[in-house]
């Protein structure tokens, strides 16, 4: 298959790599229909995140169609043919962190958790295409991806929403939403969001959905402010 790979600092290459295969019983293989570039991919690109290696497949925001499932995947949860959005953190669903719904802190999904623990003082879940510190998982800027613990993370899309309408559930919409959620927004609150980039736009929409009386966008780029205005926010 073709995949976008890291090739050194400030260098990425679309290369031919082997097709993914089932490695664990609860894996699924997804044929990717849409994928995105995250702002945090820039940290990989510019060499800011250690433990990237030449040939690492990048990308952690993707969705597609399940084309193969391992024998350990509960058919009640996921089957071949399902259309799924794949969240970027890989979660086992069985450890203490997952039981507390702290999926990004999954204690099992990162085979290299020991390295992360030494560097950060705490481990981090496995993440697709995001360095070997987060497990060394091949990412989703590719034609196909292997999705571990496929019966836990992937979100089935059973409506006719388009890819563009649901793809952002993989990472960026929840990121903006979480920012708004942490504000404990009340119906009388005026919420200002500094930075009207993609995460900021989602934070603004989330703040409104959570009941803010008014949402104000702050940015130095006129096109971003115009976008916020078009969405009904105050620039």
């Amino acid at each position, binding site marked *: 298959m073709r995949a976008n790979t890291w090739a050194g600092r400030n260098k990425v290459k679309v290369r031919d790599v*082997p097709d993914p295969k089932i490695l664990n019983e609860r894996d699924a293989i997804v044929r990717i229909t849409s994928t995105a570039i995250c702002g945090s991919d820039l940290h990989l690109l510019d060499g800011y995140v250690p433990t990237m290696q030449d040939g690492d*497949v990048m990308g952690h925001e993707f969705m597609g169609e399940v084309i193969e499932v391992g024998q350990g995947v509960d058919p009640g949860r996921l089957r071949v043919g399902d259309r799924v959005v794949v969240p970027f953190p890989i979660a086992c669903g069985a450890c203490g962190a997952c039981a507390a719904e702290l999926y990004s802190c999954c204690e099992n999904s990162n085979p290299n958790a020991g390295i992360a623990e030494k560097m950060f003082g705490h481990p981090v879940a496995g993440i697709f295409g995001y360095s070997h510190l987060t*497990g060394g998982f091949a990412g989703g800027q590719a034609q196909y991806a292997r999705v571990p613990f496929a019966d836990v993370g992937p979100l089935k899309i059973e409506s006719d929403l388009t890819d563009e309408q649901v793809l952002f559930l993989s990472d960026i919409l929840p990121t903006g939403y979480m920012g708004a959620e942490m504000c404990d927004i009340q119906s009388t609150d005026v919420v200002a969001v500094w930075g009207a980039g993609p995460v900021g736009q989602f934070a603004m929409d989330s703040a409104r959905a959570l009941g803010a009386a008014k949402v104000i966008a702050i940015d130095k780029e006129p096109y971003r402010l115009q976008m916020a205005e078009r969405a009904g926010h105050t620039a």
Partner: protein
Amino acid sequence: MTQLATREAAKARQEDVQRRGRRLGWVSLGLGVAQLAAPDTVRRISGVDDSPTTRAVVPLVGARELVHAAGLLTSRRKSVWAWTRVVGDAMDLASLGVAIAHRSGRRRRRLVAVTGAVVGITVVDLLTAVQATRAKKIGSAPTARGSREGGPMELTATTTIRKPPPKVYAFWRDLGNLPTFMAHLEQIRTTGDRTSHWSASAPFGKDVEWDAEIVDEAPGEKIAWRSTGNADVPNAGTVRFVPAPDGVSTEVHVVLSYDIPGGAVGKAVAKYFGEEPHQQLDDDLRRLKQVLETGQVVRSEGAPWGKRARKEFPQRPAQPLSDSELAKGADS
């Protein structure tokens, strides 16, 4: 003594060494400044103002004193710097001996007095150096990560698994399960109710085998074992299964001790090749948790056979495996 108390005691000793070392540093600074600023006075007091050689030697000794001072006042490695003072003292005493042999009368009396003072300083230096060296050794001994010295090594590691103690105990007690998460074990064959035969891979492709017996066990709580007969790597271990405060999980506490062949050198070589024993144990417990909680050792493209200390860096790239890599398996 508890581990905490031991650590506190080692810390207190270390602070004492630091204080004494700093004091010696100030003495060095005083002597050095005097010898550099007023070499002639120093020469007169010492009774060596008759020799032109001492005009060069005294400031040099002063400069050396400043080096001691710099080391003792700025570095925390007081043992090394205290020993440099002892070496300096030996040099001084040798020079003073030569000077005494060539002089008589008033000058000789002055030299003997100065030599007496230097002997006194030497004793203080020597005591500080010995104490600092000893404190360093004691300070590093009680760490949980295994000693750096030769001889038997003790390792401890702990993990919390979201399964009840009887279940975790039962999994471990079925010894044939151990190779599923202990990466270095090839196989364990049960040979009796409490006896078993183990085989493992060691660095440089060497295989080791040994017999083991369970010496103590309490169902659901504890298993203790040790190697028997003429094992290549004599070893013993205890694993305790403690109910975790959450009421559903088990804390697994492992203590292993074994003799790595080749003593300290063997250990250093093993570490160089990525076989750091504590890290192995740590990885093993992570895999145990994965197996019990999720059913399997978790594989990524970068670490397709689960994480192995030996293959830490670089890993294979995070891209799908080829058919031939997959066919070759963990040894590819």
